[in-house]
């Protein structure tokens, strides 16, 4: 192959745009980490006390022993609500994905997939508003408690994460090679046997990725949960008790705490915990996505 010169690389504009992405991301990580570490470096709160402390009283006067910033109530609330939401959403979401790819592609394409796209578009505050007016009174009147509860938060979230799980699961199911399907049907299996013993196992990695992505969305969702969960800074004792999450705590208090105060610093540290969790989810997704994927 004769060459007249080196192959021209990408234009500066293109490299520059891609560099912007990297710089912005690095800036987010650096700034959140810098502000988030102040609680530990400036206020000298022990990280363990911060993460595992159950008492959140950042305004406790010095006479009573000074402020306490234990975020376990927030952490527990976030973990419980998002796990519960994904647990409730996954069966319905995976069934919907199988419906779209295997059971009735025509219906799925014309009705179910567009419907799920609309679900994805409905704003978070609108979900919160519906939850506040429908779920909260329903739980109060029929199940007991105040209505503002872990259950209300998890139910709202379970609808909100559905589009994420369905979307990724549909892609994973579509990536399963046609040969597997032909082989299964050729051996005389029914559709259910094919779905249960061939399709779902073959797509396991992709479906799991969808579930983890759903979990990460649920963990970071803010206002919809804030509107229905009650925001009591205590570790919840039951499904019907109110709770608080990392995101809702930040959203409510950030506006009326002075920059540099321990209270404010603790909120930034909660944001740092959210950031660290995002990285954890990325690692988990790389692990599950790499295994058992057919496509």
């Amino acid at each position, binding site marked *: 192959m004769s060459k007249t010169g080196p192959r021209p*690389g990408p234009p500066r504009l*293109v490299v520059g745009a891609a560099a912007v992405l990297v710089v912005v991301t690095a800036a987010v990580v650096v700034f959140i980490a810098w502000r988030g570490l102040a609680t530990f470096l400036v206020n000298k709160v022990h990280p363990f006390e911060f993460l595992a402390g159950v008492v959140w009283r950042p305004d406790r006067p010095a006479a009573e022993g000074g402020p306490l910033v234990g975020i376990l109530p927030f952490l527990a609330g976030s973990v419980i609500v998002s796990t519960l939401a994904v647990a409730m959403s996954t069966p319905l979401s995976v069934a919907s994905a199988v419906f779209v790819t295997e059971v009735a592609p025509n219906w799925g394409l014309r009705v179910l997939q567009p419907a799920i796209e609309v679900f994805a*578009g409905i704003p978070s505050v609108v979900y919160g508003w519906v939850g506040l007016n429908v779920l909260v009174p329903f739980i109060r009147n029929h199940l007991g408690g105040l209505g503002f509860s872990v259950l209300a938060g998890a139910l709202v979230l379970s609808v909100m994460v559905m589009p994420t799980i369905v979307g990724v699961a549909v892609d994973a199911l579509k990536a399963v090679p046609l040969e597997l399907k032909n082989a299964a049907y050729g051996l005389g299996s029914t559709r259910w046997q094919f779905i249960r013993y061939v399709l779902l196992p073959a797509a396991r990695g992709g479906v799991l990725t969808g579930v983890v992505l759903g979990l990460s969305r649920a963990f970071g969702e803010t206002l919809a949960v804030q509107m229905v969960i009650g925001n009591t800074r205590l570790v919840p004792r039951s499904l019907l008790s109110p709770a608080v999450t990392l995101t809702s705590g930040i959203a409510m208090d950030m506006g009326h705490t002075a920059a540099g105060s321990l209270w404010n610093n603790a909120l930034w540290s909660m944001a740092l915990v959210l950031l660290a969790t995002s990285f954890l989810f990325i690692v988990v997704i790389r692990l599950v996505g790499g295994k058992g994927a057919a496509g």
Partner: protein
Amino acid sequence: MSDRLKDRLATAAFWAAAVLVTVLLAWLLAWILGRGLRYVDWSFLSFPPSNFEAGGGIGPQLFNSVWLLLISMLITVPVALFSAVYLAEYSGPGFFSSAIRLSLETLTSLPSIVIGLFGLLVFVNFAHLGYSVLAGALALTVLNLPAMVRIAEEALRAVPSELREASLALGVDHWETVRRVVLPAAFPSLLTGLILIAGRVFGEAAALLYTAGMSSPDISFTELDPTSPRSPWNLLRAGETLAVHIWKVNSEGVVPDARRVADGSAAVLVLVVLLFNLGARWAGRRMSRKMTGL
């Protein structure tokens, strides 16, 4: 239980799941629109909110939502498009490419409240923008970028390689091929993706609470001085959006008719989202028909 019976039951269960999801959506839309639309009229859409009395509208908030979206898209689209060109057309294995991939993954998985806090720190405080339209639009840009890059990269990769090869074989260089052949061919899916993302961002609130702010001056279209806080186009005035407004009236509850305002605003938000969805479908169909000449 025979295998055939099991198969029938499973089929029934899959249909039940699909019907449940569809009915849930229908109910949700009916509930939101049924409660809210009766409050929506011209004065609700154009009047400013009132601070303590009943009867306020959502005029400035509605305008701010559109204005923020527009400004943010003006920044997002070029950055995302050129990044996607890099990823789809130029990137090979290497440090820079994996740094971009990791950045996209990180930005995608960041909760929007964290992006809002980043905006508060960098745009509002360090850049001295204050609670402003510009700070909000920049935060929205950070929020939008990963999705926009992904959609653009998919659109570029879906362009048949024969088109590229034909152009390169004619002696056209790579960059010109991208500009003259690949980008036009990818345009319909780019546009569809853009509209869908715009629909989602229109209702974003968490990233805007502490960037665009939770208040808006009464804007006036007769105000011609762009530095006046009453000017709609002023990028440095506070710019509370509709979604933020729903959250605010609900959590503060100062106005006696907060319920009416939230119901009406929710209906407007959902209507706009539906319009964006339909618009994306319509544009996609129409453009692909035009391109294929059918």
